[in-house]
């Protein structure tokens, strides 16, 4: 089989707003194989969640302009009819949303909300679906699951709600799971448990997983490949080793540099790179990272394509005009990978 589970090519999502068009996603290409965990990292506002939601058709609307292509098992998702999309949502693709506090409906019992999803896609009786919900809740580490399923969301802590969301996402054994910062609200033990659960889902059902996270320790723990996003674009992608040991894009250096600096506090929201991300209303021409990049030169005024630039690893793609050999020296700051302090003009 040549076709990967998910193939996104040049995805762009624009929202028309009163201030102008927001280019939330502006050229995202990535693929996910069956049984593969792809981590998506990038600072706040880089378009990670919008990318995930667009795959499920959740950003469709009169003010959204979506272009490019996203195929799941060879089926185009972006142009699918709403009816076809409903059969995919929750069933072929499931998403764990970023904000567990508000993602459950406050007026229904937690169990009923899981059962609703199961029964939308599977011919099960209420009792059977409830039994499945209990089993799922136990799997994601909720004690006394049968009893707790009768609770309402407001009776749960953030971490518990997050686990409910995960149980719900797993309920129909999706082919693709999009987990948008699934472990942010959780303490380290539960986090490990959830990651274990994701691994198990992958090995049992061969599902592909897109894991959006800010936590590079989680990435190192579970990801097969890493996609780095910056200001709506994928700026670099490659295997875990390629990204961690031979990073090509200065923004990635910054990310890696900030983790070594904040080692003591793993949960600190990355990245601590000087400057602000560009406005999505009027992004700079050429490379979006250019205004913050200490190594920028004239060429950076042109948009660099996402392409393989390291001779020996064809799967390692990036968007940076710098020469590979120069980068290997530029990225070393005090002997470690990092982004040099910006040169002030």
């Amino acid at each position, binding site marked *: 089989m040549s076709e990967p589970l998910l193939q996104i090519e040049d995805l762009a999502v624009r929202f028309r707003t009163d201030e102008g068009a927001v280019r939330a996603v502006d050229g995202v290409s990535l693929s996910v194989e069956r049984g593969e965990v792809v981590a998506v990292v990038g600072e706040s506002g880089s378009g990670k969640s919008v990318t995930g*939601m667009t795959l*499920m058709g*959740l950003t469709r609307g*009169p003010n959204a302009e979506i272009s490019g292509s996203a195929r799941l098992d060879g089926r185009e998702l972006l142009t699918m009819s*709403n009816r076809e999309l*409903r*059969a*995919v*949502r*929750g*069933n072929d693709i*499931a*998403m764990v*949303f970023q*904000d567990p506090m*508000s*993602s*459950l*409906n*406050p*007026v229904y019992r937690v169990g009923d909300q899981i059962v*609703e*999803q199961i029964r*939308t*896609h599977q011919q099960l009786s209420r009792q059977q679906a409830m039994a499945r919900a209990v089993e799922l809740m136990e799997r994601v580490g909720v004690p006394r699951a049968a009893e707790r399923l009768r609770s*309402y969301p*407001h009776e749960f802590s953030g971490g518990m709600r997050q686990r409910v*969301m995960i149980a*719900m996402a797993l309920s129909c054994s999706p082919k693709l799971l999009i987990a948008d910062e699934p472990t942010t609200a959780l303490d380290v033990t539960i986090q490990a448990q959830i990651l274990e659960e994701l691994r198990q889902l992958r090995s049992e059902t061969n599902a592909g997983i897109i894991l959006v996270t800010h936590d590079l320790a989680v990435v190192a723990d579970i990801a097969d490949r890493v996609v780095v996003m910056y200001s709506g674009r994928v700026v670099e992608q490659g295997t875990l080793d390629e990204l961690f040991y031979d990073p090509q894009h200065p923004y990635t250096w910054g990310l890696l540099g900030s983790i070594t600096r904040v080692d003591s506090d793993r949960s600190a929201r990355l990245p601590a790179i000087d400057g602000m991300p560009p406005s999505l209303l009027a992004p700079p021409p050429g490379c979006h990272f250019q205004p913050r990049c200490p190594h920028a030169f004239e060429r950076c005024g042109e948009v660099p394509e996402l392409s393989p630039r390291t001779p020996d690893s064809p799967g390692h793609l990036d968007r940076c005009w710098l020469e590979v050999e120069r980068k290997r020296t530029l990225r070393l700051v005090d002997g470690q990978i990092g982004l040099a302090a910006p040169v002030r003009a």
Partner: protein
Amino acid sequence: MARFVIRRLITMVLMLIVISFVTFLLFIVALPGGNPAALIAGRLATPAEVHLISVRYGFDKPIWVQYVRTMANLFDGSAYSYQEGFNVMGAITRGAPATLSLSIGAGVFWLLSSIGLGTLAAVRSGRYTDRVLTVLSMVGVSMPPFLLGAVLIYYVSYKAGVLPINGYISFTVSPWQWFRHLIGPWITLSVLFIGFYSRVLRGSILDAQGEDYVRTARAKGLSERRVLVRHILRMSLLPIISLWGLDIAQVIGGGAILTESVWGLHGIGQLAFNAIGAFDTVTLLAIVLLTAICVVVMSALVDILYAVLDPRIRLG
């Protein structure tokens, strides 16, 4: 849940006692028309006669004694209008069928219509249907009932002869005539509410569309219809249901004065209208209390409904 209901009912009784006492002070003690004994005695009475009446009716007693007596009279049906001499309870009971028919019929009509139109406007938001409904609701909200009533009476009843011109026919006399006589008043009373409620509902549906849990519902693969009915409407209906509770209480308590008068229904609203003209404080007190009872009971029911619909409230 049971504890919530009981607590809410106790509050309700306390509220009624306070409201009735304040209204009593306003209407009877700080009487705008002057000494009630003088009113009863009439213009030509001597001070001695006024004093006699004052003692006989207990106007010289402490206020709380007067209050208890007046309340007892009102509730056991032995309160009489000082000016007109009719039995207040009797007058209200005579007006009640017309007013209840008007308010319950119109209430159901305007609630259902605004749910339908408000939902339609929200679902079609920004499109042609929504724009048309926006304009219509503006017209509805700014249409005074007396004008709408007059227009309906002139064109539909008088010119076209489709509806009766005015009056109320009891349901027991003829259900069909009862219905025919109420169509005009129902529409007259409802239009303003429909315009207003459908806007409120449209807004709260659009707000809910952006909720994270609605996105979750869509992400589960539910149909748009199910998302709307189960995940959006349930919460979005709450604001208009609480408005409805208060408005319907007002109308039952004689609040539809204009509609009742234009269509000559002789209900509680019209009784209130006449009582205001005649400074008939006892009747007014009774009607205000009736309204207060309706409002307090309805808002307790609305609160209980809220608690049924939203589990978070049961904690509070």
